[in-house]
């Protein structure tokens, strides 16, 4: 009885902070960079969208997993289909705590475990920028997830187990590496694909960025720790800017999307991510 009560308490979604963002001024232009670093378009644009269509975050892209198929929701500013009616505190809780305005846990296909690191000012700027994007009335598609994974409350337990608040790379580092850590572990959520997961879908932090099976079933997502990746920092920066590998092949698959996003960032941010990748523990 006490255990059940405790469990119910522990799995409760984080409460809303109604004062979130008080005293901060929104800068939508800076938000565009948060938006690019966060890679929002890669998942939330309609499947097959090209060019300017990618700014329409109508959702619909399917993500197959061991737990079912998730569909990226509409996060355009449409007040009914999208997030047009959301408040800033509601948005902040959704993005950094993985809780919907209705108070339900989101599935971790949405990388809030990474976005939890997002600084308040970046959340405020991102929210302002996203309101400038075109609205789209396409309703979000329901996820195709079976029992027991369709019990949203159980995701509270997942968060307790796997949503760690500390960064993986600890210790003192240069400001550049610290910036890279914020970008790579937070906004750009590199580990979501490059780190293997356990049976419950939690990231194995002892194998941070050491590569993982591709959820599409084809090939493997590479190990990008210094234990395997021998590209120089300037190779990495060039790759993030142009998509070219040191052999002048071009990035493919999901990574091509990531490069399109990273290419929009200031050069110093790409250099910071490269410096971070050289600082993470080497895993063979």
């Amino acid at each position, binding site marked *: 009885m006490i255990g059940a009560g405790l469990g119910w308490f522990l799995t409760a979604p984080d409460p809303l902070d109604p004062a979130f963002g008080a005293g901060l001024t929104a800068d939508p232009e800076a938000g565009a960079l948060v938006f690019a670093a966060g890679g929002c378009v890669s998942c939330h644009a309609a499947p097959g969208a090209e060019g300017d269509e990618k700014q329409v975050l109508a959702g619909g892209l399917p993500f197959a997993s061991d737990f079912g198929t998730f569909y990226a929701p509409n996060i355009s500013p449409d007040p009914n289909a999208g997030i047009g009616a959301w408040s800033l505190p509601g948005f902040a809780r959704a993005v950094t705590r993985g809780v919907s305005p209705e108070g339900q846990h989101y599935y971790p296909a949405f990388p809030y475990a990474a976005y939890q690191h997002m600084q308040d000012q970046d959340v405020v700027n991102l929210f302002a920028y996203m309101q400038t994007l075109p609205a789209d009335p396409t309703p979000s598609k329901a996820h195709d997830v079976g029992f027991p994974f369709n019990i949203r409350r159980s995701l509270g337990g997942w968060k307790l187990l796997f949503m760690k608040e500390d960064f993986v790379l600890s210790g003192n580092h240069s400001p550049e590496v610290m910036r890279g850590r914020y970008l790579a572990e937070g906004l750009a959520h590199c580990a979501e694909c490059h780190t293997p997961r356990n049976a419950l879908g939690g990231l194995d932090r002892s194998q941070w960025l050491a590569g993982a099976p591709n959820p*599409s079933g*084809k*090939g493997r997502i590479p190990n990008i720790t210094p234990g395997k990746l021998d590209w120089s920092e*300037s*190779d990495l920066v*060039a790759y993030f*800017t*142009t*998509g*070219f590998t040191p*052999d*002048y*092949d*071009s*990035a*493919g*698959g999901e990574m*091509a*999307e990531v*490069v*399109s996003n990273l*290419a929009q960032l200031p050069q110093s941010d790409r250099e910071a991510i490269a410096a971070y990748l050289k600082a993470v523990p080497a895993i063979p």
Partner: protein
Amino acid sequence: MKSLKKQTLVLTLSGALIATAGYAASHAATSSNKAVAARHAQMQMIGYHTGVLGAIAKGEAEFDAATVKAAAGNLHALAKMDGSTLWLEGTAQGEVDGSRAKAEIWTDAAGFAAKFADLEKASMDMMNAGDAAAVGAGMGAIGGACKACHETYRGPKN
């Protein structure tokens, strides 16, 4: 006697037919393989010249206007190649060993041609780059053209 002759004739004819069909099939397979090999050579040439420019952009090689013009000019020529001898029908991934060409190359031929046209334009712009920084900026456009085409028309590595 008559029927034996007829049988021999039928046998000979069918033998000839089978041989012809076999020859045609192996001939087609050879030209498909050759087309795929030639495409890979074209891509290797594109990669090589992009590498010459990339080394300048990264600061690994010194800026030299003549080298940039030559490398970008060759890229331009490679992008402009008439693809009708290269992208033969029946040479998609799964149809010919080593091919990663997606079926969309043939179902969306106009879109595919437009991607090569993007590389033509990007390499043309690169020809007049005046310093290493301009080469760096131009690399973004060339990389974007390569990436955009590969995203849509190149299948996964197996």
